């Protein structure tokens, strides 16, 4: 039983980290209706820039501020060079553009900053300790608190500020939003900037776990089942989806793995996502689109 609990808890912690990545996708999906394939590349870029700055002697907050600034610049550039020329195109075109964008960002990051694997130490111990019979890592607890705080801050920003109302308005009806004078380019720049800062937070926590390297970019693939399960347009959905994926794949690994002689965690989330697509295509918290034809 303790073993089950421990696996479950470890899975839930991992799930929050998936949710953290998924939030970045949700933000952009809400504002521009596109699955931003480049979100993973943004995670990698942010982590790599941060770790390079720290290795050159910058302190944590200076590096954090500079990297955030770079993510804002990236957002402005993406709006001007990708989104604006492609506005009013269908979502598939935009998706392909973000696919291209992911290669540009990955390539540029490695071209300028190299392809070495960097160790990232955030100064948080990542050693499991005994809490009443359960071994839990302090790092997991801190990371979870950061994710919870981030979700709370985003929630407050989107419910209490005028820009938050504008963002939700754009998500509900883009044409009506434009017709009352909401500036779509401004909304896009803001949302991509916020998604960039979320990518930075994700990049730091993931980078501290597995080193800052190209494979960070591939968290995109891990976020996909999370989004299918939680729904593409809901931040709480991203978190719940992350928890479901994390917990189920950890449990599947120990209970199902031995039956198939190997690790199932690499593919279990996708099977689960396919099952959700069959039963509840919009995800747990997503919008079922009803379109007038």
């Amino acid at each position, binding site marked *: 039983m303790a073993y089950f609990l421990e696996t479950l808890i470890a899975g839930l912690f991992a799930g929050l980290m998936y949710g953290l990545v998924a939030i970045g996708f949700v933000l952009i999906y809400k504002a521009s209706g596109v699955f931003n394939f480049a979100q993973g590349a943004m995670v990698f870029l942010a982590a790599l820039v941060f770790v390079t700055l720290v290795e050159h002697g910058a302190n944590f907050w200076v590096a954090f501020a500079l990297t955030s600034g770079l993510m804002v610049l990236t957002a402005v550039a993406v709006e001007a060079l990708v989104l604006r020329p492609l506005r009013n195109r269908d979502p598939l075109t935009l998706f392909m553009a973000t696919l291209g964008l992911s290669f540009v960002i990955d390539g540029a990051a490695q071209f300028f900053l190299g392809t070495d694997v960097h160790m990232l130490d955030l100064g948080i111990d990542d050693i499991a300790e005994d809490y009443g019979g359960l071994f839990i890592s302090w790092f997991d607890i801190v990371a979870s608190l950061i994710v919870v705080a981030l979700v709370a801050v985003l929630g407050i920003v989107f419910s209490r500020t*005028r820009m938050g109302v504008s963002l*939700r*308005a754009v998500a*509900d009806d883009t044409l*009506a*939003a*434009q*017709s009352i*004078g909401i500036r*779509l380019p401004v909304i896009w720049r803001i949302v991509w900037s916020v998604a960039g800062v979320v990518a930075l937070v994700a990049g730091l926590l993931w980078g501290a776990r597995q080193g800052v390297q190209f494979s960070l970019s591939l968290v995109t693939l891990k976020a996909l089942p999370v989004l299918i399960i939680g729904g593409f347009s809901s931040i709480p959905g991203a978190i719940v989806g992350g928890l479901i994926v994390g917990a189920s794949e950890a449990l599947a690994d120990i209970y199902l793995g031995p039956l198939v002689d190997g690790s199932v965690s690499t593919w279990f989330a996708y099977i689960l996502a396919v099952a959700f697509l069959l039963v509840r295509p919009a995800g747990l918290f997503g919008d079922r689109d009803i379109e007038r034809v």
Partner: protein
Amino acid sequence: MASLLELVDVSLSFRGVKALNALSFAVAEGEICALIGPNGAGKSSLLNVINGVYRADSGDIVFDGSRFEAIRPGRAARLGIGRTFQHNALFRRLTVRENVLAGLSRHGEASFVENIFRFGRDGRERTDFAGRADHVIAFLGLEAERERIVATLPYGIQKRVDLARALVSEPKLLLLDEPMAGMNQDEKRDMSRIITEVNRAFGTTIVLIEHDVGIVLGLASHIVVLDYGRKVADGTPEAVRNDPDVIAAYLGTVH
């Protein structure tokens, strides 16, 4: 009186089908102008051209002294052209109050950073916007629904929210696309009264589309009749009512 809006030879076609055919007319400042005509006459297309949802193939639009070949919806809003939609295009998951606040977007000056950290222009703007939203909500009798999510409200109330969202930004010109569609006679009379009050109290120039000719004759001071994208008649309600072309467009004619 000077004209606030003038259309000069505006044409629009969809894949060869002419929705608007060299249409010209003027709307005087402060009047209520109704567009009537059978289905497919081009009334909604015309509103969509005026606020830039559609781009005219040819012709000019003169609004408030400036001439445009084409305008974008956002720019139209910032110049003071507000509108409602035939099928309520409200922000369905937002509350009534949030919808109305969103309507003030064109007056927003505070930046996102000021919004988040509540400094600079944010405080004054917040108070100002809250006051304006409350005023319009009260004016349209929506106080009871203030904090309700729009999707949960009955259709007639949603129509009012749509009007509130457009009205709150104090547009110079208000385009209403079938504000009374789907309403019963009582609701229509109510909406009619509200539109007249808006016109009087705010001095807003209004261009509206309405099918109920009885309502239109009592409400509008200027009527433009469209048929197949062309202007059939243009004048006061009395003049239009007796125009043989109008009677032909509505009732058919003997060939």
